């Protein structure tokens, strides 16, 4: 393989991994607080459609991004109300949210299918994008990709280096003890759910405003589900979420490149490679079963009754 090809594969890897990173980081924070929200796909779709409509109607792409995040956030509030206020089953509520989001986004966006939009353009960072190899791979993307880098650093520091992150994890491990120490369990969980929603909305906006600027029904094509799996296989660690998302992106690209190069492997087999490779690597990383158990938030998915 020549130099250009490798650079381009890695460049495309970053782009393919970006929507997964955004939605998975949001879900990671949400799950760390002990709340399992399976509604990622629905929130992403709502973000994608609302972001697209807002950008088209106002002519401002960044307003579109803001609306997308708000849409994801509002969807997550719905989830929060049902699963946290009413203590409904989180799995069922999340699934319902996905179905609801898919249907609602199709309904809302029906007049916008097929409308063209000049999307968010790549922004070559001066100096940094001139660095050979790395410059092209990391610093000649659209601004949402850079935002994903920043959000990763932010989430990583929040979870591992901040008091607020510690409080969030405490709530995810044992809401009862957290409450006993005076932490506002309910409020923290709500904030975590909202963050997850906004991030899913942002991931949707990345697809409909930057990656392929258009709106079409179900255009997320299952990326919300992949992100959910990533969080589990990354054993709830931000750096592994990042690694997993890029790994998945890399293998998705390889699946296409290999065919172009004339490898005579079944495309169906190649198509499952990203899933397989990502799972295998992440499982190897967290092969110590006892430790994995420690990583999973203990109270994940269990409703918390403040009165308990």
């Amino acid at each position, binding site marked *: 393989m020549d130099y250009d090809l490798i650079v381009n594969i890695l460049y495309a890897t970053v782009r393919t991994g970006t929507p997964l990173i955004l939605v998975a980081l949001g879900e990671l924070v949400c799950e760390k607080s002990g709340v399992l929200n399976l509604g990622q796909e629905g929130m992403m779709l709502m973000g994608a459609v609302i972001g697209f409509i807002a950008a088209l109607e106002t002519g401002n792409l960044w307003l579109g991004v803001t609306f997308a995040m708000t849409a994801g956030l509002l969807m997550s509030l719905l989830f929060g109300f049902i699963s946290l206020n009413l203590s409904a089953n989180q799995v069922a509520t999340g699934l319902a949210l996905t179905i609801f989001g898919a249907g609602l986004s199709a309904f809302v966006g029906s007049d916008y299918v*097929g409308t063209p939009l000049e999307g968010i353009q790549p922004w070559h960072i001066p100096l940094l994008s001139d660095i050979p190899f790395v410059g092209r791979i990391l610093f000649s993307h659209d601004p949402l990709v850079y935002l994903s880098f920043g959000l990763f650093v932010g989430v990583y520091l929040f979870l591992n280096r901040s008091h607020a992150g510690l409080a969030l994890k405490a709530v995810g491990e044992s809401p009862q003890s957290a409450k006993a120490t005076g932490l506002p369990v309910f409020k923290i969980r709500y904030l975590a759910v909202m963050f997850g929603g906004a991030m899913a909305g942002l991931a949707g906006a990345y697809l409909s405003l930057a990656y*392929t*600027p258009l709106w079409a*029904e179900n255009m997320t094509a299952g990326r919300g589900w992949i992100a959910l799996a990533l969080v589990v296989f990354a054993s709830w660690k931000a750096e592994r979420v990042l690694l997993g998302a890029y790994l998945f992106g890399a293998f998705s690209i390889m699946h296409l490149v290999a065919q172009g*190069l004339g490898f005579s492997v079944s495309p169906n087999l*190649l*198509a499952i490679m990203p899933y397989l490779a990502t799972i295998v690597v992440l499982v190897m990383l967290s092969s110590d079963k006892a430790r994995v158990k420690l990583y999973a938030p203990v109270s994940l998915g269990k409703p918390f009754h403040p009165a308990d």
Partner: protein
Amino acid sequence: MKQEKKSLAQRFAKAAGVALALFMSAQSVTAAEPVKVGFVYVGPTGDAGWTYSHDKARKYVEEQLGDKVKTTYVESVAEGADAERVIRQLAKSGNDLIFTTSFGYMNPTLKVAKQFPKVKFEHASGYKRAKNVGTYFDRIYEGRYLTGVIAGKMTKSNVIGYVGSFPIPEVVRGIDAFTQGLRSVNPKAVVKVVWVSSWYDPAKEREAAETLILQGADIINQHTDSPGPIQAAQAKGVYAFGYHSDMSLYGKDAHLTAATHNWGPVYLDKVKSVIDGNWTSTDFWGGLATGATALAPLNSAIPEDVVKLVEERKQAIIEGKLHPFQGPVKDQTGAIKVPAGQVMSDEDMLSLNWYVEGVEGELPK
């Protein structure tokens, strides 16, 4: 807010009006009843692709026949138990003719047709028929052959990229027909295929197109449903062909043309035959000659002599003087599959599972 309320009130008024009209039409038996035609769609009508092309035809029929026809449609109907329920509902509510427009509706259509022998059914892209169930499809491969001719004349690198969905006969037939057209004017050109294992994933289709461009393709064709490949071509400054409907909105410089379905004349014909009382169950497979297949407007970047050539070839296909799969047709090894002077049969085309000469790589089984 006020405006919103008003429009809601208007909607109610409209709905009430429709209900009243329905009631009245049920009451009056004297006037000539319009033929009632139902449509079942797999996607939303706003879709720029497959379902959009069918709904355009429904509107065309209404325009042409005026109050002689009354159409209803149900969109986004999943290919399963839902489909059967919807089809039955349409049959029950007095439709004389029902178009079911997706491959997965085949068995549900037949099942309902048995229970409603007086209702006529037309199923798109299927192969099972009954006394009151006909089938229809278009020869989109004829349009693809023409895009191949354009590609052969426009390529500089002699490598054409093709974004495929799944290696089924319908898609392979398109790749082969395209390659036949391509090689008929440019024997040096080759086609590289990348399968994305999905009918609809704009982001993945875009990546596939970019990968092909990276590997030397300067024209992209596709057999997937989204404009992702067009967007990629536009961004990279190469040419591309759309599919299903005109996709030039997504890249006006890149979009050379698109092989499109034009169901209008087909549907008009079927509805008319029901009105005239001479409908029979047939297997309709029409192409350029019947107008069922067409090309979107050609990009002005295409030189005039090429436009002329395409027009000539199109005319020859319409007149039956040219067939995309007329012998000698060679497979990848150079072995002759259709001898000179012969034309591939419809049956062979419908089960096509090998690449013609000029396609690179192995066809996955």
